[in-house]
């Protein structure tokens, strides 16, 4: 009799534990989805502002053309064209870096109407990408970790969901390459 009670109790506790783990995974997946949505919004915003900067006539046509084509490639990738989103987004970062990396870039736009606003908007959009990507990758790490647990794997608590991938891009406008001039960059991102 006592043995039976113990067995029932153990099974019940196990059930509670498993459902708690499954609930946790569920919450992690929800957090992941929200983080991904925020990242997508940030990327769309960044490419939109870059495209606006390219077409506003403030910059010379060569820089405009570079930014426009990089922003366009990023947008195509965002809407699911081509293979992979990370490379076009990194390319957009590099194009922005090359555009802003020229010594005296900010000074050259000083006094031009609307320039300061656009640059600040770009700065904030790029910073948003930096933050959103950080939080998304955090969520990916947590989810991957939870799903790697033996219990989760044994009981397939995640169901058929595929293992989430990290989103790896260059997102800092202050690069390490030769184009890096620091001072004239939008003051950005860690």
């Amino acid at each position, binding site marked *: 009799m006592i043995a039976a009670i113990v067995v029932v109790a153990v099974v019940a506790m196990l059930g509670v534990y498993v459902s708690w783990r499954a609930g946790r995974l569920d919450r992690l997946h929800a957090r992941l989805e929200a983080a991904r949505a925020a990242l997508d919004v940030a990327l769309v915003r960044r490419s939109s502002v870059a*495209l606006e900067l*390219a*077409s506003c006539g403030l*910059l*010379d*046509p*060569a*820089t*405009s*053309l*570079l930014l*426009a*084509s*990089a*922003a*366009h*490639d990023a947008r*195509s990738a965002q809407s699911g064209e081509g293979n992979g989103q990370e490379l076009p987004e990194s*390319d957009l970062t*590099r*194009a922005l870096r*090359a*555009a802003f*990396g*020229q*010594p*005296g*870039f900010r000074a*050259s736009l000083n006094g031009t109407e609307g320039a300061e606003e656009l640059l600040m908007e770009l700065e904030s959009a790029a910073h948003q990408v930096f933050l959103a990507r950080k939080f998304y990758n955090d969520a990916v790490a947590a989810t991957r970790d939870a799903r790697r647990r033996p219990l989760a794997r044994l009981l397939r608590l995640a169901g058929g969901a595929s293992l989430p991938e990290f989103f790896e891009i260059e997102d800092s406008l202050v690069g390490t*390459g*030769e*184009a890096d001039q620091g001072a004239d960059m939008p003051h950005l991102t860690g």
Partner: protein
Amino acid sequence: MKIGLVCPYTWDIPGGVQEHIMGLAEALIDLGHQVSVISPADDDAPLPPYVVPAGRAVPVPYNGSVARLAFGFLSASRVRRWLKEGGFDVVHVHEPAAPSLSLLACWVADGPIVATVHTAIPRSRAMHAAEPILQSALEKISGRIAVSEAARTTLVEHFGGDAVLIPNGVSVRKFEKADPLPGWPGSGGALGFLGRMDEPRKGFSILLRAFEMLALERPGLRLLVAGHGDADEALAKTRPALRDRIVMLGQVSDADKVRVYHSVDVFCAPNTGGESFGIVLAEAMAAGAPIVASDLDAFRKVLRRGQAGELFPTGNAAELAAAAARLLDQPELRAGLSAAASAAVRAYDWPVVARDVLRVYEAVVPAADRVAVAPQ
């Protein structure tokens, strides 16, 4: 005439556009014109006296690869200064749709502008996004030149209007005379190839198969190959017994390139497509090499329907082998083709091509004053 040429790509890295501009500039100078070229280059880079450096080109992703380009307001102000000091009758920009100096020159210049389009690029949606940016700068171009039919189609599709077709030039005198490489062509006969081995459209694998067919019956025959590509990988596909009869030089200097053309009995151009003009073919003709080439439209035209070089059905290794064998066996046939090639290539010699370009300059110059800097 005072002529300003604008090069979009960095001068210190060799490339088709840079070579074109160099050939054109030197031919125009020889014809007695004053020429200045502005090009991305370091200020301390060794440059010909007619080249003005516009500062270092920056590597930046463009069109799916990383290109070295000069853009931005600093480059624009260099171009502006060059225009002011030059006082040109005409400015001739190359590859104006690339985001570099040429586009900047269209932007800051006011006056007669001629543009040459070199590459054929498929119309893409990215171009669509950039069109308004390009349009306002390119509208200022009063004379357009395309180096090939494909480049011309690109231009017409993207920007409307039309363009004059003036093919690429070759500097015949640079190729005419050279000593063969030591030991070449040798008594057993030699075939030659120049170009990327790993680029399928250059047709190197077709030549390898043809060489295998010929080499079995001709124990002394050798193959001389110059150009970029993995030599071991290319050789792995051939019979081991033949490998030491294929000599791979890899990438060669300009001087050695000329010697390669003079080192072979038969020069092979087995391309399967993509060559709008075939600068390699024109160089081989300038060197007076007997040529066997694919029956591509462009090659057929350059080789005067087979009078200046044997043509074989594109991609057919057996026919290539048969044509090469005919030439190897008949020295008088080779001599005839060599003379015909030297004569035919005159039409593509830079002094001749430069005169065609000058006619375009003359057509646009009376319409306006000298090139000035546009008010910003």
